[in-house]
């Protein structure tokens, strides 16, 4: 019963990730990052709900959700809201999940780095979230399954006034909220 072990391992990894202090997350390179790194970032997002706690969902859905937790952040270039090719896979993975499980819901949380004025940055964060939203809808996700929120520069994951921190903060987090 290998898949049970795999599921248990995934749930355990999530649990551990939730307990750890969030470390700095490296921006995703062309290859997807390891589950534990992105898992921490996922739990550092606001109101992240893990599929493991939802009683009504099927085993298959919980498994699919667990796989998603590994990659749920899209990073952006400075002053840009374009989804770079290396993050197409992230968007597709979430689109695949949402089209397969029509009751699933995702919240897209848009963020910016700290430069510039705060309310304008709320706008930039929203623009990024909207880009991901459109990409999901183009892949068949229903409008009613998506909500967006922008935190602008108010919820950074990385502190510091250098490009390292900035690049980690310019992001959209895809938070599956069931």
């Amino acid at each position, binding site marked *: 019963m290998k898949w049970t072990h795999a599921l248990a391992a995934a749930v355990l990894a999530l649990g551990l990730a939730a307990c750890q202090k969030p470390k700095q997350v490296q921006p995703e390179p062309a290859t997807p990052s390891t589950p534990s790194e992105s898992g921490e970032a996922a739990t550092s997002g606001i109101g992240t709900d893990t599929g493991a706690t939802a009683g009504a969902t099927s085993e298959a859905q919980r498994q699919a959700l667990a796989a998603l937790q590994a990659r749920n952040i899209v990073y952006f270039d400075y002053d840009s809201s374009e989804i770079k090719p290396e993050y197409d896979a992230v968007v597709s993975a979430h689109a695949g999940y949402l089209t397969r499980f029509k009751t699933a819901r995702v919240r897209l949380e848009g963020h910016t780095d700290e430069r510039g*004025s705060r309310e304008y940055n709320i706008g930039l964060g929203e623009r990024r979230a909207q880009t991901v939203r459109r990409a999901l809808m183009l892949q068949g996700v229903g409008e009613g399954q998506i909500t967006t929120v922008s935190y602008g520069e108010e919820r950074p994951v990385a502190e510091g006034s250098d490009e390292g921190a900035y690049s980690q903060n310019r992001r959209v987090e895809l938070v599956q909220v069931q």
Partner: protein
Amino acid sequence: MTKNLHGWARTALAIVAGTALWLGASTAQAQLRLDITQGVRDAVPIAVVPFGGQAEGAATDVAAVVANDLLLSGRFKPLERRDMVTRPTTGAAIRFEDWRLLRSDFIVVGRVEPDAAGLAVTFELFNVQTGQPLLSQRLPSTERGLRATAHRIADLVFERLTGIPGAFSTRIAYVTVDGRPPKQRFRLVVADADGFGPRTITESSEPLMSPAWSPDGQSLAYVSFEGKASAVYVQRLATGERRRVSARLGINGAPAWSPDGRKLALTLSRDANLDVYVLELASQGLTRLTTDGSIDTEPEWSRDGGSVYFTSDRSGSPQVYRIAPTAGQQPQRLTFTNGYNARPRLAPDGLSLALVTLDRGGYRIATFDLKTRNLHVLTDGRQDEAPSFAPNGAAIIYATRSGARGTLAMVSSDGRFQQRLSSDTGDVREPVWSPYPAAPQR
């Protein structure tokens, strides 16, 4: 409390450019500390002599509050107490020769006396060179109102000597953040303009931002994410009562009060695009001002309520525009210098805007003259933002960074005088200066 103030009063008068002074009250709040980073070389030397009738360790040292206010303005250099050989409390007792030797140009003496209804504070202002009396007044007061009376005296002295009304009886609101992401505590705080007596208005584990004083100084509008999405609240300071005035789907942000206090211009994203709207508070009637697909946000009213200034990136990058506050109008672009101009705030005389500009790689505070269209950069930080004018137009408070932390700073409107208001702990941001109090202070 008394001990702390005594020490504070003493240090307040250790006046050397660059000396750090403690301003805050002894509450658990992060205190604001004053550091003069760029003193005015021609600051006017003035002696503010300890007032008579003040017991040692009195809760409010009137002369110390007055001297500190004058120092805060950047235009005066109060004489240190320990250099005062004599301590006259009436004009008749002043030997002007003493004070000429100490190189003071002006002197303030006074006394606090019991009165039928409480206390009376009398002060007299003299020109030291000529011995000429310039101003004297007797102000009714109370034990509790003594600090406010001291600020009033500072206002009167300041206006008499500079021609500009003082702003020492006003308040500032700002946001503090403690802790590190993702577990942070946000507070909206109101304090006196000299940093004294910080009081938490609201607090949350979710972001708070964009505080805005109502024109009557009685309420603050602000943005809170406590409902897991942004919403605009209006809170009455005297009662703590608050109303959620906009929690529409999407973004609710950047509230700005109309001059008559009846409307808020704000930013909504009702069709997935940020635009500026006007909300009539009583009726909740909504008027949409911008329809462009760009980010339109950060509205600010003109003095006559006939225009709204705002930030838009419709040209490709953020710039400041002006539009009439009715539906279907075309905005007019105002800023063309530099590739980024945002967050306009009107000067009290209505003739210029303070804004954030990207100047040689740093986000800095600048003033923009609405007539000449000239941009004047005032600060030299990398991350300066959120400018707000004092109600007398003489200074601008803003947010800056000191190392990793957010702190507040002030610059005179002509850029000559700068000071930092740093905090012990936590991050301080988004300062807004209150209007003048509606009624004269007792």
